[in-house]
């Protein structure tokens, strides 16, 4: 796995770029910009569903979601550049593993939200039942993305070989 990722990074030129003087900080800056876009749009939508600023119509606010998706895509791409350039620092890192798990849960939660209460809650005056359900999705979404950010920020403190994982002893 490590070797495959590293070979990909080297073959595509990512490895060379990331090891150039400003490669890593430039890509990190983009990763943080993507994070901000995601939190500022998807996070804001979640906060609104949870009761913040009810004067802002949900359908109007939802128009900002594509920018959050853009931020997420930017972060997947920049994230791939980090991970493939030093795979051993990530694959065995419990902070990174937790981050991926949180991301998977956020994705699952999003799918369930869009396939269930999304339509009802986007109505001009949604029912109390629709709002209650949507609030659960919004709270889980916020928690998951907070977990993703926390996991990401903690990666540097759990680098192998010092910390392979919590449960390795």
């Amino acid at each position, binding site marked *: 796995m490590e070797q495959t990722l590293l070979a990909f990074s080297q073959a595509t030129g990512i490895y060379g770029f990331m090891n150039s003087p*400003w490669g*890593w*900080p430039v890509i*990190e*800056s983009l990763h*943080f*910009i993507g*994070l*901000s*876009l*995601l*939190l*500022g*749009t998807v*996070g*804001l939508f979640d*906060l609104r569903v949870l009761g*913040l*600023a009810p*004067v*802002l*119509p949900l*359908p*109007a*606010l939802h*128009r*900002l979601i594509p*920018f959050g998706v853009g931020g997420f895509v930017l972060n997947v791409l920049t994230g791939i550049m980090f991970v493939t350039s030093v795979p051993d620092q990530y694959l065995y890192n419990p902070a990174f593993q937790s981050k991926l798990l949180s991301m998977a849960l956020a994705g699952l939660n999003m799918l369930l939200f869009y396939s269930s209460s999304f339509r009802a809650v986007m109505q001009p005056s949604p029912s109390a039942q629709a709002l209650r359900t949507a609030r659960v999705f919004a709270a889980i979404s916020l928690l998951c993305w*907070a977990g993703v*950010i*926390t996991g*990401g*920020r*903690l990666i540097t*403190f759990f680098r192998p070989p010092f910390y392979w994982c919590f449960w390795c002893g």
Partner: protein
Amino acid sequence: MPAFFIALLSWIEESALAVWVGESTWGFPISLVLHAFGMGLLAGGNLALRLLGAAPAIPLIGLLRLYPVLWGSAGLSLVSGVMLLSAYPAKALTNGVFYFKLSLIAIGLWLLAKPVRQLLQQGVDTAIQRRYGAAILVIWLATITAGRFLAYTHNVMRVSDLTGG
């Protein structure tokens, strides 16, 4: 390096806050995580994107309701930023990029507090909206980038690196 500056850096580095942030298991990581949350919620682009013309159905006056979140995020970033700074004062305060970042933040917060707030209250033509939207977007993008570059542009880590002690 002036003696009083070294004395100031030493005083910060030896303060109780600095010792806790720098030496406890969770002080530094928690500060980093909180700083990231503050950043995302303050510089998340929602206000800038709306002013630039995205999501025009969002009422401008309603965006004033986001100000408590924006100021709360700024406060969180300030507190966590002071925590991070306290642990390595020499690292940041001898780096020009840090002062550049602080200047950007001052401009960004002033824009939010004065002209942008006024614009949201009174509503102005879209050309002016776009100008301010672009301004805060550029300011926050540059702030984030400058912040990230702080980790790569410092010359020293500790006060002892300056005094040779």
